[in-house]
């Protein structure tokens, strides 16, 4: 009982912190925006008022996207780590991002109008992510060592970046520029009217993750043990890959690639909560993942007047050393 009390207290603390950080995020930036501006921008919107526009069209979508990207990628990472029984797995290292990137690159560069539409890019990022998820899944059944799968994921990444470079040389300057802009990554390309679609995908994925809590708990013991406990492994694998693909695809399509969040956050969560109960791990990953990206983005905006840093760079700067620590810790 003591343990679950501690876990609940921790969850409660995170639950209180998240909205506070989200609120701080809304008020950070080079333009001063007041509470009244937010109130008016929602109930009394005037599109000729800069403060209204900034709060409604920039800050709210940016904050929402930070929450979704952080929470989503963390869940994706958690699911993959459990599925592949590998705490160093994640959508980025296993090349799921690469799949999304490759398909976005191809769609931008083919120039077919449907594909280059909003929905087109999202759909293709999804397909790419799912396809690469299946490829990794296929390889996971063939390799025994955990490290092999990570290497295969990295190779997939290198392979696709080579393909993307090839596509780049064949594309015209304008397409190239659009792709380069996309690949730079940003939390602030999202528009208010796109949020419902993104939120729907995000919500569906979260729901999906909760639906596989029971199999996830069993998968902790490995495929064989899970099957002995009545888990339909094949179905669960597909569902997990699908959820991961939806989250990674949507986040990658709108924000560009964001590294290490999916890998680092679930590990941090397990270290904090010291459990393998996925109901708790999922909730905590959502909360900590969201907070992590929000804090990163707050930091980026605070240093922006002096120094410009893309979100992907900051998450890597923090995430990569953390992952090295994790590896060292496991080697002990």
């Amino acid at each position, binding site marked *: 009982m003591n343990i679950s009390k501690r876990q609940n207290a921790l969850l409660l603390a995170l639950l209180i912190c998240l909205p506070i950080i989200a609120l701080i995020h809304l008020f950070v*930036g*080079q*333009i001063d925006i007041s509470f009244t501006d937010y109130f008016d921008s929602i109930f009394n919107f005037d*599109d*000729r008022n*800069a*403060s209204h*526009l*900034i709060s409604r*069209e*920039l*800050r709210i979508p940016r904050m929402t996207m930070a929450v979704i990207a952080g929470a989503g990628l963390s869940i994706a990472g958690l699911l993959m780590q459990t599925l592949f029984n590998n705490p160093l797995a994640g959508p980025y290292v296993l090349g799921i991002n690469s799949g999304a990137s490759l398909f976005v690159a191809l769609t931008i560069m083919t120039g077919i109008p449907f594909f*280059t539409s909003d929905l087109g890019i999202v759909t293709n990022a999804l397909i790419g992510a799912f396809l690469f998820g299946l490829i990794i899944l296929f390889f996971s059944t063939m390799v025994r060592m955990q490290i092999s799968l990570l290497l295969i994921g990295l190779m997939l990444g290198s392979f696709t970046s080579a393909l993307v470079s090839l596509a780049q040389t064949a594309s015209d*300057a*304008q397409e*190239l*520029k*659009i792709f380069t*802009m*996309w690949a*730079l*990554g*940003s939390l*602030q*390309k*999202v*528009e208010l009217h796109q949020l419902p679609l993104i939120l729907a995908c995000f919500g569906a994925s979260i729901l999906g993750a909760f639906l596989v809590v029971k199999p996830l708990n069993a998968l902790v013991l490995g495929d064989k043990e899970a099957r002995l406990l009545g888990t339909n492994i094949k179905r669960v694998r597909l569902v997990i890959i699908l959820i991961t693909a939806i989250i990674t695809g949507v986040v990658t399509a709108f924000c560009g690639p964001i590294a290490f969040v999916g890998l680092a956050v679930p590990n941090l969560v397990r270290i904090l909560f010291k459990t393998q109960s996925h109901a708790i791990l999922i909730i905590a990953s959502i909360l900590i993942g969201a907070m992590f990206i929000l804090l990163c983005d707050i930091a980026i*905006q605070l240093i*922006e007047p002096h120094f*410009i840093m*893309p979100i992907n760079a900051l998450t890597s700067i923090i995430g990569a050393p953390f992952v090295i620590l994790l590896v060292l810790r496991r080697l002990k």
Partner: protein
Amino acid sequence: MKISFLAVLAILFVSCDGNKQKKHASFDDPEKIEIRYAENFKLKKIKDGYLLELLKPGTKDVSETYEIYPSENKKIISLTATLNGMLAALNSQDLIVGISDYDHVYDSGIRSRFKNGGVKEYGGTAQNSLEKLVASEANIIFYDIVDEQFPNQQKLKKFGIQVMPIYDWRENHPLAKAEWIKVVGAITGKIKEANAFFDQVEKDYNILKNLGKNYSKKPTVLCGNLIGDSWYTPSGNNYYAMMIEDAGGDYRYKTTKGTISLALSIEQILNDNLKTEIWLNPGYKDKTTILKTNPHAKHLGAFKNNVYCYSNGMKKFWEQSASRPDLVLSDMIVLFHPEDKSIGTLNFYSQIN
């Protein structure tokens, strides 16, 4: 060149205090060389040729020295659009045997020579092939890469191929950029023509400038676009900001210091520019593409009817904008003051739809 206009702006780092005129000791030679605006090179007559000194930005120190003998320069590889334009302006495009990319060439003379094999493609500065360059038997290669040595420079020298950077983009006065045509004049042995060409450009520019300054109504102007999460736009002392002022425009960031580009957040841009009347150089040819990379652009006041880019003649712009600032200024006046029908039509710019 694949380097975007914005990126070029972003790397300008020459400090400059306006159009201070510099008088150099004149030579007794009839083809006297007088540099009035440019701050990044010096050109002197020597026996049978010229001495070109490239100066370190912001200082008077000589960083590189080249002896130029026009009679030797029979075959030129030009990897920069500016130089193509300047050679064409002096009717010397026949000297060109190599370019970076045929698709980026505007001049019809170079294009037709490419088609009948007189001109070959050598790719950008970074990715060209040493063997191909040697086989070209060119005397000299011009490039404009930023802050970097030309690859295999020493090896090329052994084969008698000189490489020379063209730093027109480091100049921070529109006429200083144009003045680099005198370097081209020295190289091709057409210094007289180059002087005449520049004098005409200078004269035309100043006439337009006097016209531009006298408009009473000056529209507000915004430049640039997002790269990543930052909106790059020229600082107040940048040559482009200078040209907006010369054309009778009210540049939104004219009071900012420095010559390099400003990097502003989209929030700052929206905050400052909801009512700005004209948006120049968004970097894309159509509004759909602008929105794809910068969806929030639609809130800008100018987005609806007043976005302009040099998309009318992109290649022409790359080749000629440095040597013909008068044409660029004329375009700006037409855009800023459509009520004045006396200027004529647009050379490079067009409205973006």
